[in-house]
């Protein structure tokens, strides 16, 4: 296993593509949390995110042997597969939004504390309310920590367009969450 740990991701993927159980296990261990978090933040639902993560890896094995190392990083490619699956689900459930929904202002109330889990829930909610492309941009850059080049390539937009999506999304979030630091 120690040699497998030192093995390059490319070699691991190619071995997984040949059905090597150790390689499959190692890749799942390394990549599952990232794929799961991506799907969880795009869909806002843990059970759906788990299904997407599972399907992402199944598709990955089916095509791993054909994956071309020079074309894209395996991690970026996994993101593409997972994002496609997320959008399929969003389309099916008609949860795609292009404009921010009307939502009553949930500003600070007299009985609302700032427990960490409350903050987390508020952020989750605000993120879920963003139009998908803005949410996708924030999830890829902020949470998945992809570079601007990787994120823009995945989304099929220029870096300038990515910046615009990020700025609009984060401006909305800042406004929705402004009370968090006003109270701090």
């Amino acid at each position, binding site marked *: 296993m120690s040699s497998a740990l030192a093995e390059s991701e490319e070699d691991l993927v190619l071995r*997984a*593509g*040949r*059905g090597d*159980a150790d390689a*499959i*296990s190692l890749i*799942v*261990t390394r990549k*599952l*949390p990232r794929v*799961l*978090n991506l*799907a*969880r*933040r795009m869909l806002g639902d*843990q059970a759906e*995110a*788990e299904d997407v*993560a*599972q399907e992402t*890896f*199944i598709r*990955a*094995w*089916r*095509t*791993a*042997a*054909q994956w071309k190392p020079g074309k894209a990083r395996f991690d970026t490619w996994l993101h593409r597969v997972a994002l496609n699956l997320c959008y399929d689900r969003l389309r099916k459930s008609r949860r795609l939004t292009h404009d921010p929904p009307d939502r009553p202002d949930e500003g600070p109330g007299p009985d609302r504390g700032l427990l*960490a*889990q409350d*903050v*987390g829930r508020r*952020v*989750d909610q605000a*993120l879920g309310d963003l139009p998908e492309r803005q949410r996708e941009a*924030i999830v890829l*850059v*902020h*949470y998945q*920590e992809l*570079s*601007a*080049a990787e994120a823009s390539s995945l989304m099929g937009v220029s*870096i300038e367009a990515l*910046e*615009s999506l*990020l*700025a609009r999304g*984060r*401006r909305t*979030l*800042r406004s929705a*969450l402004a009370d*968090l*630091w006003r109270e701090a």
Partner: protein
Amino acid sequence: MTTMMTLDRFETAALAWGGDLSRWPEPLRREAEALCTAQPERTRDLIAAAGRLDLALAAAPAAPASLALRSRVIAAASRSRPTGWSLGEALRGIIGAGVGAALAASCIAGVLAGVLANAEGFSPSRLAKAQDPGVEAMQLLRGSQDPADGSWSA
């Protein structure tokens, strides 16, 4: 001589890319660093504002990847046959290893295994228990041949 980034441009960029300059794309980051050096107080406020949002975003909980899910994903992946993992792939591996003879042997073994798997009365344990597995295999093969037309009953 390059033009210095404006504060407005810096503000928009900070809003988009966050309070950590190292995460900004090039050449934006270099230009931003130059402005930070030239106008430290103004840029510090803008970076701090972007950083507060970064901190709030970080409070969103990560999805737990349970051991059960990991096992489920591995099991599902192991069940799915890679489309690219073809006979050609296997043959390339064998030839690459320079085991030419293994090619013919593995083909024969594969045909044999396929026929045996469909032969009536075949089980791996029967072959394992046999005194001479080769003879046993041939008997199974003969037994699975249709006496009427000589074709395999499988």
